[in-house]
């Protein structure tokens, strides 16, 4: 199965990544693309800064991707997670899941996002519009609960 995992500071191109996953194939019936974007939190934020643990981030996402592949009949999986300074409106994360049928693609993409939120070694901190450095974003209990759905 085509599995692509990348951690990068540069933006990604969802159309290119989707084409790589589907080109020349006629067995894929469903592709779910999840894109996570940086919000400005009502005008409060100038940027989010994403710190990550190089090496472990790739290993952990690879492990989560392997779990998704063993749970659903996937035909392709792409996870790209950015790090560094990201402005409101910019993309942070992309998950692509391809399958013959929609249910597997939807569930795998949702599962991957819940795990990325709570298990992948990334940390966000806020940079405020007034030029100051804001707080580290706190982990949300709702994200832990979302992950527990899959246990």
């Amino acid at each position, binding site marked *: 199965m085509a599995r692509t995992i990348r951690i990068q500071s540069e933006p990604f191109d969802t159309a290119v990544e989707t084409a790589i996953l589907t080109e020349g194939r006629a067995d894929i019936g469903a592709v779910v693309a999840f894109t996570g974007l940086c919000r400005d939190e009502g005008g409060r934020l100038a940027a989010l800064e994403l710190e990550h643990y190089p090496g472990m981030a790739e290993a952990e996402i690879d492990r989560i991707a392997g779990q998704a592949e063993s749970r659903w009949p996937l035909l392709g999986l792409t996870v790209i997670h950015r790090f560094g300074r990201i402005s409101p409106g910019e993309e942070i994360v992309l998950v692509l899941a391809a399958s013959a049928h929609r249910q597997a693609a939807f569930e795998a993409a949702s599962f991957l996002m819940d795990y990325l*939120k709570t298990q992948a070694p990334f*940390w966000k901190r806020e940079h405020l519009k007034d030029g100051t450095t804001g707080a580290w974003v*706190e982990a949300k209990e709702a994200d832990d609960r979302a992950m527990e759905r899959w246990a």
Partner: protein
Amino acid sequence: MKLVYFAWVRERVGKTDEDVELPEGIGTVADLVRWLKGRGEEYSYAFENEGVVRAAVDHVHVKPEASIAGAREIAFFPPMTGG
């Protein structure tokens, strides 16, 4: 043994990483945290709430009771907020 720190754990400890020589009797992650807290205020501040700081041994999430025998790199960090 290499220790690495991320996010506010890194800021509180005041360094991104360090190499340490552990004394006898440090067998688990919890032992290591207890030993670090005795090394100075910056460590006791970083680990003031031990239930919050997460650990990974050689890139794998572990619990406090996990063994650190043979580990090359141990990481400490806050709960993850990726995605």
